[in-house]
């Protein structure tokens, strides 16, 4: 299901870098049903996962690592910063050179991302319109409130007639072609409005409204178009930095995880939590996030994620570096204290 098409990408999760690599390798490559997927040949990601015992003393010798300065400045939790600095030291122990690198437009990423994502999702979610969803009768649609008004209309797909079709998926069309609720209405605008008002959740509706606003006549240039320009600036600044460094590192989030529901009433604070990762999405680059430590005095030792960003199509390099980093980290295979506590 599409959210923001120009940003959407499959995120692979695994219990280790190697697991994640196996999953990525399985799904990577051109998909002929997705015109935006690359036709570039997929290298073998699986060749990078040597066992820790075979590592040399400086397994990442010569690797140039850039720590993005803007991600460890004001507004980022102190515990997060110190954990990331420790991770940087770990990179140095592995033989890397680590330097701070500045990406001036970094902070512009968050607003640009939200404008683009909400604009696209307002459009992508238009199809949840209540039209393909109707009651029981397969083809004849009853007047929705019988006996009341002759101008009541409702809409259905006559897909059910397509039994003669020989495509495998068609057998199930009658079920998949009808989804969501259709609210009974006497007027087309209300049918749409009421169905969507009832069927979509409040966060979704808020995002649709904001995206619709950003694309409206008179606002398009000020929002959507500028966000696209910012996107180009960000992409270029990352490209410049990745010409000098093999990988860039940053925290995965400005703070440790907040409690469930904690920021429910403060969506801006919640969206701000995405600041570290959205730039990568805008620039269209691969990134690997792995836990690198815990906030010591923080709330019951929550984990801190380290984000490693590589050049376009350098997933293999990211996986190799990530695997070595993970395997050589003290307590490399760790269980977060909060989980450990509850297990005991």
């Amino acid at each position, binding site marked *: 299901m599409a959210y923001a098409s120009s940003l959407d990408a499959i995120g692979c999760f695994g219990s280790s870098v190697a697991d994640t690599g196996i999953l990525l390798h399985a799904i990577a490559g051109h998909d002929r049903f997705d015109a935006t997927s690359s036709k570039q040949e997929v290298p073998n990601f699986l060749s990078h996962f040597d066992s820790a015992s075979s590592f040399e003393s400086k397994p990442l010798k010569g690797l140039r690592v850039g720590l993005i300065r803007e991600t460890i400045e004001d507004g980022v939790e102190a515990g997060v910063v110190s954990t990331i600095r420790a991770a940087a030291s770990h990179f140095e122990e592995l033989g890397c050179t680590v330097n701070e690198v500045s990406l001036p437009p970094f902070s512009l990423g968050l607003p640009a991302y939200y404008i683009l994502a909400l604009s696209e999702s307002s459009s992508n979610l238009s199809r949840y319109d209540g039209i393909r969803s109707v009651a029981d009768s397969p083809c004849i649609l009853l007047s929705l409130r019988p006996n009341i008004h002759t101008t009541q209309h409702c809409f*259905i797909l006559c897909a059910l007639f397509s039994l003669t079709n020989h495509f495998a998926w068609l057998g199930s069309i009658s079920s998949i072609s009808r989804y969501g609720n259709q609210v009974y209405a006497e007027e087309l605008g209300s049918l749409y409005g009421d169905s969507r008002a009832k069927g979509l959740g409040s966060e979704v509706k808020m995002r649709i409204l904001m995206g619709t606003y950003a694309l409206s006549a008179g606002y398009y240039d000020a929002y959507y178009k500028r966000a696209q320009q910012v996107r180009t600036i960000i992409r270029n600044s990352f490209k410049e930095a990745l010409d000098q460094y093999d990988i860039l590192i940053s925290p995965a989030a400005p703070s440790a995880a907040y409690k469930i529901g904690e920021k429910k009433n403060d969506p801006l604070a919640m969206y701000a939590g995405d600041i570290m990762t959205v730039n990568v999405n805008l620039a269209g680059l691969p990134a690997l996030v792995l836990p690198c430590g815990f906030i010591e005095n923080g709330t019951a030792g929550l984990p801190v994620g380290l984000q490693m960003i590589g050049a376009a199509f350098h997933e293999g390099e990211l996986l190799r570096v990530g695997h070595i980093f993970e395997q050589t980290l003290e307590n490399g295979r760790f269980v977060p204290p909060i989980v450990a506590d509850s297990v005991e």
Partner: protein
Amino acid sequence: MSYTIFRTFQFHPFLLYPTSILKPRNRFFFSTTTKATQTKVPTSTQSKKLDKIPKDYEAVIGIETHVQLSTLTKAFCSCPYSYGSFPNSSICPVCMGLPGALPVLNSKVIEFAVKLGLALKCNLAFNSKFDRKQYFYPDLPKGYQISQFDVPIAAAGFLDVDIPLEFGGGHKRFGITRVHMEEDAGKLMHAENGNFSRVDLNRAGVPLLEIVSEPDMRNGIEASEYAAELQRLVRYLGVSNGNMQEGSLRCDVNVSVRPIGQSKFGTKVEVKNLNSFASMSRAIDFEISRQVLLHSQGQEDQIVQETRLWEEGSQRTITMRKKEGLADYRYFPEPDLPSVILSQEYVDAIQNCLPELPEEKRRRYEKMGLGMQDVLFLANDKNIAEFFDATLAKGADAKLVANWIMSDIAAFMKNEKLTINNIKLTPEELSELIGSIKGGIISGKIGKEILFELLAKGGSVKELIEKKDLVQIADPVEIEKMVDKVIAENPKQVEQYRGGKTKLQGFFAGQVMKVSKGKANPGLLNKILLVKLNSKS
């Protein structure tokens, strides 16, 4: 006529239910959803409206044409499309707009767009893109139409048209503003009782080219000739069947009127439901005279931006929907599709494979010395033009071939309700026939007999001549014998002739021809006959 009205009403519930929910703000039915039956209108009705356009006003007409491309599959999925197939029998998750399904562009759409763009002498955009045009309507499953907004694939071209002689003749060039690619929407089928509507998505996702003209047309004929030329062009190019009744070619027309000399355009009115070139021409002329009348009565403020519907039954336009400000389609670049990049090699390859276009064909025929009436008759129908050219290729004389096609062959096709593709006569045999007459092997009269035989039953000219012993008699001795025989048998007429009634020569010639069973060479016959008749005087 009542049937027409009934049909129109049935497909336009708005008219039945003015408060109906089907009052979309952003769009309306495609004109083709009304399959209004063709009504023959007496020309008197037409001229009554035409002659009332005073000389001091001028009409400005622009046309938006949607051409449905005859690709094997839809624009963004692999569903086939064929007109009239069972509702929702050709749909898939992509063209149904189901969650998770993504569009993948059919490369034929680009090829056809480039073909038409080149044929319309447009500038091509080597780097264009698709955009989403967003609005809610039940026939639009995704909630947006994939279209092209600010960078159309082709722009700034023109179309050359020869106006038929019966409408004043002349060569006109109409500007093309832009050509862009987009997908069609589905179709709504409204229940007779108005209680519900059904959605048929067979047509959803079928590729279209939208061709927008400059406001260069000045009357109904120019507009319908423009549209007819566009139809010829897409048929010549093979990008569409151009069939108006099936909705493969749909025209929406913008009409405004202004006093001559005024540079500012008048308020434009959109006219829809034009199902044939004839109704297009009539609808425009009606709309012009309606607006001119309001102008001349000082009521130009009564002309408002609106969409009017052509009513075939009553031969007038009626208000369908007033414009409620500009619709906001919230266009933005389609993120599911990569941009459309054309290479020079690709464009050159298509350019080099373009067939001869109608305009080029007409100019070529004109250079052969054919009159404009012949030129239009031959070039207007791609199949007739091909037949004509094939006959020429076998060495026949252009004027003679044109005469044969336009007279006897055309008459035969009309009588038998056949097209040139299903007559039995082949271009080879027509050429052979013309050559046989020219070479004196058979007479023109025999030639016609053979022609009808060939049209109806086929066969070869040579065989027919042999089988029926139709070879022309060109031996002077043999003809002389026949002349002698006729002279001998008609002494009275000979006397009269020699007495000065020389008109009787025709009588003698006819008699000799009869004796020869129509096979005598007419030139030789007359020559010998004259000598004989005059020699003994």
